[in-house]
């Protein structure tokens, strides 16, 4: 059951003039959260902007004893709400509802997990990487951004034993171009008999490209979709995604309840808004 916390902002670290990591005191949510789940955050106290925004839970923060104390979200300033969150100061209160949605299911050894992130699509993977480390699953992060300084938290992933494969559009770190380049090469050279599952989050064209690659190479692939959401609880039917069904025409399902994590093969990519 989700809870709604009028959470105190513990810190808001600006990573750049676009990105920030907002830490919220929300032990109840932190205690329940599973990898890939999201929260609905209210950026203003009043009615403008009116609605909450969905954010992946980026980190689950704990005391040394292991007791959960809060969560963080990775925020990219793109509109009115994300600007307010970018500007939020420590001590402010922000309403936060969660955890919500269908989580990732981390694979267990001997299977390997390959996470594929583009830009702010990094957000759901730190919690997944923790879960994979706890299971002893070998994990790789294919991580694409515009340039080297837009690749964040790479040390945190490496500290969890995750192998990092970066790609930048300008070639300032890792492969030059989209992350799908090195991913395609890696998929083509998996040892016979090895089991690999892909987990993807990023811009829609990138997720679609990765889903196509996964399908071509015959690998299971989960995508974490970012849809415009009204409520996060299944009430409004605004966050729908067109999905395939066996023996019936495609069907709109609510991303907040059946997602945000979907089997990539279910998605009718042509219908997904960019």
């Amino acid at each position, binding site marked *: 059951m989700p809870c709604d916390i009028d959470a105190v902002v513990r810190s808001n670290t600006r990573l750049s003039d676009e990105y920030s990591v907002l830490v919220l005191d929300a032990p109840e949510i932190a205690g329940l959260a599973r990898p890939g789940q999201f929260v609905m955050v209210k950026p203003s106290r009043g009615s403008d902007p*009116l609605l909450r925004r969905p954010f992946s839970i980026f980190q689950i923060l704990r005391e040394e004893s292991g007791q959960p104390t809060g969560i963080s979200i990775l925020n990219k300033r793109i509109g009115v709400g994300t600007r307010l969150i970018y500007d939020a100061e420590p001590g402010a209160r922000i*309403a936060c*509802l969660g955890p919500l949605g269908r989580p990732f299911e981390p694979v267990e050894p001997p299977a390997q997990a390959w996470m594929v992130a583009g830009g702010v699509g990094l957000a759901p993977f730190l919690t997944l990487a923790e879960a994979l480390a706890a299971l002893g699953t070998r994990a790789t992060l294919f991580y694409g951004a515009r340039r080297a300084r837009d690749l964040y938290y790479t040390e945190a992933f490496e500290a969890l034993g995750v192998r990092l494969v970066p790609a930048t559009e300008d070639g300032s770190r890792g492969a030059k171009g989209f992350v799908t380049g090195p991913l395609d090469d890696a998929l083509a050279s998996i040892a016979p008999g090895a089991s690999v599952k892909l987990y993807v989050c990023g811009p829609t064209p990138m997720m679609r490209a990765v889903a196509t690659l996964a399908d071509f190479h015959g690998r299971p692939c989960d995508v974490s979709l970012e*849809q415009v959401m009204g*409520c996060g*609880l299944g009430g*409004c039917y605004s966050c729908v995604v*067109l999905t395939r069904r066996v023996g019936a025409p495609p069907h709109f399902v609510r991303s907040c*309840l059946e997602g945000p994590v979907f089997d990539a093969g279910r998605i009718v990519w042509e219908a997904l*808004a960019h």
Partner: protein
Amino acid sequence: MDLSVSLGSLRLPNPLIAASGCFGYGVEYSDVVDLSILGGVAVKGLFLAEREGHPPPRIVETPSGMLNAIGLQGIGVHRFVREKLPELRDRRAIVVVNICGTTIDEYVELARILSDAGGIAALELNISCPNIKEGGITFGCSLTGTHAVVSAVRKVTRLPVIPKLTPNVTDVASFARAAEDAGADAVSLVNTFLAMAIDVETRRPKLSNIVGGLSGPAIRPIAVRMVYECRQAVKLPIIGMGGISTAADVLEFMIAGASAVQIGTANFVDPFLWSTLLEGLRAYMDRQGIARLADITGTLDTTRREQAWISS
């Protein structure tokens, strides 16, 4: 302290009803809210058959409000009765079923099916959804259409019949009157205001359906005025709605003439608001020395200013 209200023969423990289209089928919220503490749950509009609705984007935020064009995606009445109604009964929810048809015969068929289903408190006739071309609003925008659909449903059910009125007409009170003449037990108003938002960079509409319905605090003063106008025109109980998010907003609608209210968009923002609103209503009653909340319905005082002039 008595928070109960009556809508004709229907008695509710309090005036707060979850608005249709804003609360799924109610069961989605059963983990978050004790459904039995609500005055009622108006479930998402049902057609006879399943519907897919419009492609996304289906909502867009506007100043203190939002536009939606969901297009009445839904599971259809048969699956509702089979899959959702039993849980709503188990949770002791007071269920108001919102029904939509493209013809009068479809409304009649829906009313028959739901009257036989058991465990339903009332039928709300959706004759006001701005987002679908066929049926629905074509009845709601014509006085004869409103009269015809209400009287046809009236003939086949003993359940309270509550047409939900659109604000997208010149004189909403005349539609309340048509509903009253046709034998409605109450009217609910307002549905959303037909509206539009455009992305100026791409020059494209922000909704896939181009136009949608405006809801939220932005519409509240217009909705209050419309409830007030209907109060003057009919004796029927009125269920008021439009941008309610606080106890003061609830009271505003009741004073204007509503016997009960519906809450929609605010539930998206705060799904836990029900207990806050009930506390707020109790605090008001305490402060004002009101024993029965129902007594404040239609108590708008418009005379004082005039009297002051006369006596001075």
